[in-house]
């Protein structure tokens, strides 16, 4: 990307991502993810799936799952619809890249800054999620994903490693409220 003059801020408004550590839990804001949505065009499924496989090194994930052999991963978000995540540093132009790769077989929309990402790590994550959402997070398998509401905010919960490592994607404008909800739940549990 070209060097431009504007400074980026994180969703919580800082110049650096915020990290909060408890004894057995860490809540980290993560601004290092590029994200785009990918939706299959009608009647182009075969080519679309083939391109998906090329992108991920494996098939596009089924409902509720995350897949990808390398740094690029796809997350199922709805029928014929996925998010694709990749490191921001190397993939800031992820939407442009995907649109070119899937030329005409997919609708691609940049989503990087539509979301705030919090990574929640530690053995107490299950108890914290019990205070946050109706999902049975304790039973989510590694590499699964689900959308739900957390304190009225539509969020994705991604299970990176069952019982240990999760990602919450929430609407970026609600970052402060979501962070407050996560912190409050953590303090209440730990």
């Amino acid at each position, binding site marked *: 990307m070209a060097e*431009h003059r*504007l400074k*980026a801020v994180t969703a919580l408004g800082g110049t650096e991502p915020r990290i909060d550590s408890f004894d057995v839990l860490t809540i980290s804001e993560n601004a290092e993810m590029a994200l785009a949505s990918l939706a299959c*065009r*009608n009647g182009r499924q075969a080519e679309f799936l083939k391109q998906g496989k090329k992108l991920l090194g494996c098939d596009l994930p089924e409902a509720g799952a995350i897949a990808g052999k390398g740094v690029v991963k796809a997350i199922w978000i709805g029928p014929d619809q996925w998010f694709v995540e990749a490191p921001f540093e190397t993939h800031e132009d992820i939407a442009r890249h995907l649109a070119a790769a899937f030329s005409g077989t997919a609708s691609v929309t940049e989503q990087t800054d539509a979301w705030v990402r919090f990574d929640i790590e530690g053995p107490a994550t299950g108890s914290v999620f019990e205070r946050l959402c109706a999902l049975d997070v304790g039973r989510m398998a590694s590499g699964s994903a689900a959308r739900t509401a957390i304190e009225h905010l539509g969020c994705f919960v991604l299970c990176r490693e069952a019982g240990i490592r999760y990602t919450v994607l929430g609407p970026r404008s*609600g*970052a402060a409220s979501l962070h407050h909800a996560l912190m409050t739940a953590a303090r209440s549990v730990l």
Partner: protein
Amino acid sequence: MTQPNRITGGLIDRAQTLNFQFDGTSFQGHAGDTLASALLANGVRLMGRSFKYHRPRGPLTAGSEEPNALVELRSGGRREPNTRATTVELFDGLEARSQNRWPSLAFDVMGVNDLLSPFFAAGFYYKTFMWPKAFWEKFYEPMIRRAAGLGSLTGEPDPDSYDKGFLHCDLLIIGAGPSGLSAALTAGRAGARVILADEDFRPGGRLNAETFILGDEAGAHWAAMVTEELRSLPNVRLMTRTTVIGAFDHGIFGALERVSDHIAAPEAGKPRQILWRIYAKRSLLCAGATERSIAFQNNDRPGIMLASALRSYVNRWAALPGQSVAVFTNNDDGLRTATDLIAKGVRVAAVIDSRSDGPNVQGTELFRGASVVDAAGRQGIRAVTVRLADGTRRTIECDALGVSGGWNPNIHLTCHQRGRPRWDADLAAFVPSEPPVGMTVCGAANGVFSTSAALRSGAEMAVTVLSDLDLTGTIPDLPKAEDAATRISPLWHVPDGGGRAWLDQQNDVTVKDVKLAHQEGYRSVEHLKRYTTLGMATDQGKNSNLGGLAIMAELTGKTIAETGTTIYRPPYTPVPIAAFAGRSTGKEFRPTRLTPSHKWAAEQGAVFVEVGMWLRAQWFPKPGETHWRQSVDREVLATRKSVGICDVTTLGKIDVQGTDAAEFLNRIYANAFGKLAVGKVRYGLMLREDGMVMDDGTTARLAEDHFVTTTTTANAVGVYRHMEFCRQCLWPDLDVQIISTTEAWAQFSVAGPSARNLLRKIVDPEHNISNEAFPYMACGEITICGGLRARLFRISFSGELAYEIAVPTRYGDGLIRAMVAAGQEFDAVVYGTEALGVMRIEKGHAAGNELNGTTTALNLGMAGMISKKKDSIGSVLSEREGLNQPDALNLVGFRPLDRSATIVTGSHFMKSEDEANARNDQGYMTSVAYSPNLGHYVGLGLLKSGRSRIGEKLRAVNPLANSETEVEVVSAHFIDPEGERLRG
């Protein structure tokens, strides 16, 4: 300090002495005590005054079904009324007060109500206070409310927090008594995901209160061992102090966990209580049973309690309710109280068994075929009068009486989905018959009363349920336990004596009230309940309902089965409103959405306004500005003079792509999009199917198959949902994909004659934004500030030369700072929503006030936009005759005749000669602003045939604001009616 009525034994920890106060007097108790048990151990049995008659009362029970011993706890913001002393766990420093009494519990002035009781019989509200009507609200009701009542609220904010939470399990077991524990053990060992919830702080149920031996050990010890094993199983979650309050559809349960009620104040960050929503594939109701009383004259004296409660206090808490105890029973179980007490060396004055064939009891005087007919002792029982089998009477001195009328299975949760229980004549009790789908009832809750059978029942039902869940359970080795049959001869009330015999002690309902209801024709159980208020108190009549309807059955000559029963609703026990609110209080009532420029705006001292969940800058006060109008006028004037910047990120943005994207937009917007060129923007009018305007916005065509459409801030969610409905349900084969991108882009409006000059300092020079290259309604992808990707739209809401510029949200903060810096040489301002509103009213643009769900395109002057050459939502019904009358409302402008006058939104228009009333209504004012450009107020409004009435003078009347202004009908376009500025 001594505890005069404390005996040996029990499940209390004597090593921990706890100090507490009741009505200002200091007492001591022990860990493991409840407030009621500790007070009884200290010889206190008067704990409350009754609701209506202010009768002195002591505890009737030892559990959550308690109707009498309601007390107020703590002080300040934590003061909490109506807590049941029988469930309050004692902690050091506990302060409790009796309630519904003045000046003191022992001498209560309102006790006079008791003497006036003939006037307060059932239905007295309806009869006594009928007339005059106006007296009801002003006099009778407040008077009654003061006289009859429970505790009062503190009025101070609650300093504690309340959480909510969600739990999932295979099997929810409700109640940790014998059946619940054996079920949990069975399911837990089988590997099922189990939640075992019990309202008590100590699992075991009646095992903790009885002297039962299980195998070779005390029942309480067996319960403790099982509890220990359950705690060690990772798949079992044992939740004590947790009441399952309701059974809802499809295996959803509500449960209240009292996390911190047993300590003086919650630990930092921890909640007082948690309201859990439990998702259970299956549930086992092991809620046990509740003993019921027998009504006789003055059976509410302090010291008279349920027989099982009496022995609970003695066995579990080593607290003696009296030094000389009598027992009145109609069944074998009641006799346990006598035998337990005798075994502990307590004096049992007499056992009165209403049956002539009851078993023998050693160590006391036994009267078979006898009944208690009266009790003496206003502040505490002194003696009972007994009618013996031969009809003679005897007075027996005692200072406590245990009464057992049999047991009612705790079927409440089986009724929450309208399940009707079934009468079991052998047990003389209602048993569950239609529990909710997925629920199985075990043990005493299912009428299985013996300990041995309850243990078996829990394990067997667990095995059955496990097989439904594809798990294999094995019945564990269950200890040998008592297996007595239920032997009862129903007795609901003792008819002797003319005084009052109490059924519902919490609502002060007597046998006489039931008779009165019958006499007056209120004979169905539902009428009986509402006429007498039987069972309508917070205990939901757990002890009393059955007695009332059994008496009604007698009076009507029907069986109890024929008479039927009322059913129960959630919650099982009262739940504080705070627990339902959870964390959603004050500023945390809902989340707040912040705009990308929020941080910068806050630094400028902006005043913010809530717009839905968004917090937007309303205006930006400058030093010396003391009134909001000064700031807003300045922002408007500066924008129209040179340039103003406004954060418009909150508008909904929806990405619409696909080979049929244009066709899709054609159908959801009334106007046509097919011919919109790439690189152009068009205004779109969206109708509901009924022809009313739903929303409006602009749609930019970024590529042949790629559009970005905007919605109003308020309708962003609803419009997206509507578009998904159209896409999935109406035209499933159109090739169109949509996704919200509202949050992905920070978007700013740059408006005013210098807008282009300002943007030239931001937009990279390779992009030509001259009027020729980038005319009105152009759009395109550009780069700014040395290479950052951005989008530029030449659209205007203010009527000025204007652009909207969008960058990835993380750069929004940087962009506002860069634009403010670049704008200095043009005296640029940043304006808020107030100035935005003023400028759109000056320009005559319809917005939320006009798109109010009742207006059509015709009303808003946009009827011509509805294309008749294509199908679109709402176009057909917009042609309905009723929406196209010649006198339909039209959006027009208004200005006051006296230019210094103010006009008020919501005013209705009247012709000058007409009286101001609904019949003469000509329409209403939708939006009003002070126009700093014109120097007077301007308004937009909907006026009948408005467009043909330009120049007419009307009155704008607002009786609510007590205002009336003479106005002139003018064009809605107050500024630049030809639209030259925005094209310049």
